[in-house]
């Protein structure tokens, strides 16, 4: 089976950590999970990765990661499978004063 393309959408505040783009394309192997997607992102943009995940690889508390519109914590977290053509959307949660 061939790799599948997915798209990552970033908020403006993170674009500087992703080479200036808010739209990133990933080529993932079939059956890949969110963790695999983030690992691939990390290899290309390590500074972006640590905005999203802590030192132990956990998604930061106030970072929400949507898979085709569903927040991953309501699915299987970073073990959530990523379907072909999926849109992964990073949105900061409502937090802070």
């Amino acid at each position, binding site marked *: 089976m061939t790799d599948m393309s997915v798209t990552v959408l970033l908020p403006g*505040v993170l674009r500087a950590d992703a080479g200036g783009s808010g739209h990133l394309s990933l080529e993932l192997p079939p059956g890949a999970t969110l963790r695999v997607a983030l690992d691939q992102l990390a290899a290309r943009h390590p500074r972006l990765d640590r905005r999203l995940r802590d*030192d*132990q690889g*956990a998604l*930061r508390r106030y*970072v929400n990661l949507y898979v085709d519109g569903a927040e991953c914590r309501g699915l299987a977290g970073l073990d959530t499978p990523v379907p072909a053509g999926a849109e992964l959307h990073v949105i*900061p949660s409502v*937090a802070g004063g």
Partner: protein
Amino acid sequence: MTAQHGSAAGTVALAIGTGKGLFLATSGDRRRWEFTGPHFPMHAVYSALIDTRGDRPRILAGTTSQHWGPGVSASDDLGASWQEPAEAPIAFPDDTGASLEQVWQLAPGPAHQPEVVYAGVQPSALFRSEDGGRSFQLVRGLWDHPHRPEWTPGFGGKAVHTVLPHPRQTDRVVVAMSTGGVYRTTDGGASWQASNHGIRAKFLPNEYPEFGQCVHKVARHPARPDQLFAQNHHGVYRSDDGGSAWNSIADGLPSDFGFAMVSHPHRPGVVYNFPIQADEYRIPPDAACRVYRSEDAGKSWGALTDGLPQHGFYPTVLRDAMGVDDAEVPGVYFGTRSGEVFASPDEGEHWQQIAAHLPDVLCVRAAVVG
């Protein structure tokens, strides 16, 4: 006298870390200041270092975003541009199971090791850099200390917030943490000894435990490195033997509570403190803004008030929100939780307010940069 000293200082840079970004100011006379910022908007800046040991001044900032986590950024052009390495400057190794929450302290190593920088962090740990603060390694000896499971978080978190490298003997470092107390190493960080003998912990059943004291800040002078000054959660102390034993120096202060403790950059035994009435109030005694200075290593204290509001002043000064520059006649600076910054060009004799309405001030650092 004051004007002479002010004009002789050269250019002084002032770094003001706040709850919502870093503000930088420069001055040629320490009276008129030019501000830039906020750098790192929406990031809490708990630690800053103006490092003047190299060819040109380097500013390091420990930043924390509620959303995007902590980081350390560096500027070699007084804040005109910032760099943060692609790889995390400070990260806990996988086997620790820990993740960096916040950088509470960025401290320069000895003058003869200009690339050595220490970071005190939350959760309580010490990191050491050998490349000027671009990358840091965990000091394992402190992380593996058998006391660590018993270090408990204070209100501000569980953090190493004070790092005092010995000015000449590179194997000796003193750290302080909340809540845990003072620890020191004499073998380059391989082993650490709790150094709290004589410091009272009135919030514990055993009031004089080996460790568990809530030290807020420790200061010392590089020319007299065995003399340490500590502001604790109740209690102000001095040690004359590198931390083996501590004795109270709170007499003469209006309160034994506070956060800040700062050493004069040139005169050993001269220290600055900002007392806070505790525990029910947590406001400056008499609602007056007063810096206290001792010129005899804590035997006596005098209030510095000229130019500071003496009525209806309620904000507090946090542990790193007071600092000195290193001019011949040093300036003294402090910021408040209500976003005011006060500066003295003459060792605290005269003060003026140089900023207001900033976010809450978390740290203040100053240095002569030109």
